[in-house]
């Protein structure tokens, strides 16, 4: 079953929290993974793989660099599961 954008955001926030310790409330659509949440490239890959599993989507390596903000990731996952 497809997840709503709100569910994707909440799920991503949990994944980010588990990997980095960033509070789930701080994981908002307009936040940049690197600049605002201070997530490095290795943590980003861990987050991507856990998101793939959680939302049953595939995010290719070349697509990961386009996921600048949390909103970019929510949008990609939302369209990929459609």
């Amino acid at each position, binding site marked *: 079953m497809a997840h709503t954008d709100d569910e994707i955001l909440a799920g991503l926030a949990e994944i980010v929290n588990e990997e980095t310790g960033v509070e789930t409330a701080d994981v908002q659509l307009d936040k940049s993974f690197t600049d605002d949440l201070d997530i*490095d*490239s*290795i943590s*980003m890959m861990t987050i991507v*793989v856990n998101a793939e599993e959680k939302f049953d989507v595939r995010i290719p390596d070349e697509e990961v660099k386009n996921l600048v903000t949390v909103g970019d990731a929510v949008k990609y996952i939302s369209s990929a599961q459609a």
Partner: protein
Amino acid sequence: MTVSLTPTQPVPGSQVLGYGAARGDLDVPNDDIVGPINSSDEWIRQRTGIISRKRASADVSLLDLAKKASLEAVENSGLTGSDIDAVIVGTITFEYHTPSLAALLAYEIGADGAIAYDMGAACAGFCYGIGQADALVRAGTAKNVLVVGAEKLSDIIDPTDRSMSFLLGDGAGAAVVSASDVPKIGPTVWGSDGENWKTIYMTHSLLEYKENPELGFPTLRQEGPSVFRWAVWHTADMIRESLERSGLSVEDVDVFVPHQANMRIIDQLAKQLKLPDSVVIARDIEDTGNTSAASIPLATHRLLQEGKAKSGDVCVQIGFGAGLAYAGQVVILP
């Protein structure tokens, strides 16, 4: 007339008899290498878990490192050089295309006339070698096989490279594989993914360097995040398969020795595999660095020497790297 040939006589199993190790003679802490990559000790520790790496002086050759590790492995196995009838060396840094390092090494340790060849499976080299040694011994083709992972990676690094040079160290690790009444080396799970070779690569070929010396000597690079993703999630599956094919599960593991590529990969692998807290995990990378084919025997040797691992322990080991070659197996420690 159909001629029936006499085959070699197979034996029931193989085992590792002993390990040997040789690390580079120089300690190179993060502070010594951060300048050219505009980085910091903290940045390297956080991303890789490395505090310092071992590198070899200019006058220490790859053969010197391999010989030291090999002589110790042979001695720890209760053998002498003349007992060794096959020498397999995993390396990507021998300075000659030919002859092989293995042939020179066999001669140097007194293994006169031994089968000898090098094998280019990069960071998977040692586990590829153990897989081959297991097959040679069980088939009755060889009696005592010396498997060596040896690298002088400092010869192929670029101090200004931010992708991987700062990870790398120099060293050699060796093990002797011999016959056993019961199998003490499990089935090897191995392969490659040549389609994605560009994730770990040399900047250019030696021929290109010969034609255009201004390119500089070829050096190693990687696409870090892609390698991380492949290394963790593909490798975790291969480890589960190694255990399954040996008739074991994660709960049976005493010691986990993954290739010492990056502490973050080691941590993620342990997490993905849900290893029990009782499992001893090799973390030799912290002060040795990533020594490619040498990293697994170096780490295992250290755990045995420090008493953190003991004879009879169930050890699962896996190497993974360039060519996207990978190999892993379960070994009962000597």
